[in-house]
């Protein structure tokens, strides 16, 4: 393993399972033998709020939180959140976005509108972009709640972590009875990233 520290930012909306995704990723990263740090801070009543999990791993990691402009990967479970957290992504970093739209309260009550051209805008800003319909892939896998695992499958394609380590991390993080669905979800994410 080189000296590189990987900075991965997972962002989404409370309830989308970013915390579990962070747990799977960090457990898989432990297999590399270096240090792993994760920052998982959630403010008041985060249901429906904007949530972020930061995962960092490498031979030596100091801060559990990364600096703005230093993320190698921004994995966004929702489009608006992708744009909100984009300043964290390094100019050479990769953006992985679930194309789902979840409307925040100001949009629901009609105080403002959901930005319409986010996908185009972001593809122009970031050369290295993967946009996928993780919601649909999760449905195909058998449970729409597996969006988080689809996203980890897509991310996995770009990381130096073995498939075995991912599978172990998955098995130790999700309940037994959902394991098959989650394996399928992971595989679908992985395949989408390969295209």
């Amino acid at each position, binding site marked *: 393993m080189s000296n590189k520290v990987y900075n991965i930012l997972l962002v989404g909306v409370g309830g989308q399972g970013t915390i579990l995704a962070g747990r799977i990723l960090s457990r898989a990263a432990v297999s590399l033998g270096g240090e792993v740090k994760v920052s998982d801070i959630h403010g008041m*009543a985060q249901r429906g709020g904007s949530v972020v999990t930061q995962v960092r791993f490498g031979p030596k990691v100091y801060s559990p939180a990364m600096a703005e402009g230093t993320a190698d990967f921004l994995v966004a479970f929702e489009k608006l959140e992708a744009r909100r957290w984009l300043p964290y992504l390094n100019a050479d970093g990769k953006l992985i976005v679930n194309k789902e739209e979840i409307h925040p309260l100001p949009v629901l*009550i009609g105080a403002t509108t959901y930005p319409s051209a986010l996908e185009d805008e972001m593809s122009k800003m970031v050369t290295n972009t993967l946009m996928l319909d993780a919601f649909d892939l999760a449905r195909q896998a058998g449970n729409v709640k597996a969006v988080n695992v689809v996203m980890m499958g897509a991310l996995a394609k770009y990381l130096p972590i073995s498939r075995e380590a991912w599978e172990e991390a998955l098995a130790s993080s999700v309940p037994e009875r959902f394991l098959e669905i989650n394996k399928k979800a992971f595989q679908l994410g992985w395949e989408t990233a390969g295209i």
Partner: protein
Amino acid sequence: MKKELLIGNHALARGAWEAGVRVAAAYPGTPSTEIVEAIAQYKEVYAEWSTNEKVALEVAIGASIGGARALAAMKHVGVNVAADPLMTLAYTGVNGGLILVSADDPGLFSSQNEQDNRFYARMAQMPCLEPSDSQEVKDMVGFGFDLSEQFDTPVMLRLTTRVAHSYSLVELGERKEVSLKDYSKEPTKYVMLPAYGKARHYVVEERRKKLMEYAETSPLNRVEWADKRVGVITSGIAYQYVKEVMPDVSVLKLGLTYPLPENLIREFINNVETCYVVEELEPFIEDQIRAWGLPVIGKELIPRVDELNSNIVAKTVGAKVAELDPELAPLAKPEAMQAAATAETNLPNRPPLMCAGCPHRAVFYILKKLNMVVAGDIGCYTLGATPPLQAMDTCICMGASLGVSLGLEKARGNEFGRKVVGVIGDSTFLHSGMTGLVNMVYNGGNGTLIILDNSTTAMTGHQDHPGTGYTASHEEAHKVDLEQVVKGLGIKRVQVVDNYDLKAVEKAIREETEADEPSVIIARRPCALLSKEKEATCVVDPEACRGCKICLRLGCPALSFDGKKVVVDQVQCNGCGICTQICPAKAIVKAGEANE
């Protein structure tokens, strides 16, 4: 050795267990809650949710006097509540080791202020330990207990949110059985009459001198010599940011920030060309160093407000160091933090909100409708202050609703008083609302208090409390009868309503605020996240919906407007039915009732 990824709070629980703790008490509060939740899993330890932080610390004091290693955990503002026993505990000292965990919240992720509790350590003249990752948290617990017993002092273990809630690898050890120390009656040590208290103050002064001596050689402080052109003195999580930004400068890392090691610091500063102090929040370390007449640069560069992070360190101290030698501050180089995009300021924000089906929503809807002045309190219901409900006028600290509403009434008279309502959660009422209520009765207030009884401490993640009938280890306990409590405190007018019945809520509020005597309305409905069965959801009859958007005033995340009509998100809706009661066209109905 087995290593596990743990958040700071779980490492703390593990460390306490390994160090032989026997009694742990806490009142929940972010970012401290997980500590006692986790300790409660160890069968060797007695763990409790206390009614408030003062009681939690008092339980720990009793356990310590009784010879056990004991711990009390709370968020930073909890120490305000516990400050009274704390300041005298500093005089009595301990028998079994005692650790007070103060979990501070720089950046106010989930708090009403961002006070720096290291000042409490200085005020009480007790050691303050500041870990910077989970391994250090675990190690410092054992260390803290030893220190506490060695110097006969309580010890503050100060975490911050970023330490408490970040995972890092921790080596697990085994539990060390620490036997109970003998109990003996020692009134001059534990009965703080004025004469005994004065004698103990001399003891505190002696202890302080010994601790200062100890600090000079404590393994909790360490110098990492590197390039001596730059030195940085730092503590806690700030250490990680300093290393992140400037891995090759000399660092004095302080694990013990009260009392500070004067000679060690003096020597460090003398050996570097320029010395910076990088600390989060207040200049706690810096002020002391300046008082010794030593030259350091600190708060001229590092803000006193908000959470610190690598960006801020890079742009302040990092930038100065880079002027000297760019290689010393690699993260301060422009290309190191080159972002893919700048922030877009016009994005719709995504504020936290009351859940679909939250029983609090109905009450605030009515309070807004009746244009009440609402003296609020702290809990999930504080979100009643945010749009679109905006039905709360004040929120100061836990329990303040009662005193504030009485003060408003006394200042502006009865007529205004009739428009004032206090609103408090069940856990908060038991924490510190009862004294305010009896005060209102005693002092002739005519106020109305609404107790939002959702049968849990929802805000911090659903902990039990005396009103739920279960303990921290999920055993059955006496369940407080709120009606009896308020009657016992002298309230004659008590009404119980179901939050989901809007008419009943409105009627009760109208009646009680008009009455010329103090009254309590208990709005009782379990937290929507606790109810297991899903009610039939609500649906909109698109033929009937006129698009008036009145229902959107509820701020329910399950309701939205598609441009012409309102739609109910069937995944989110939990069927509380409040929207069906306010729709003027009767266009929203419970699924299944549509064609009846």
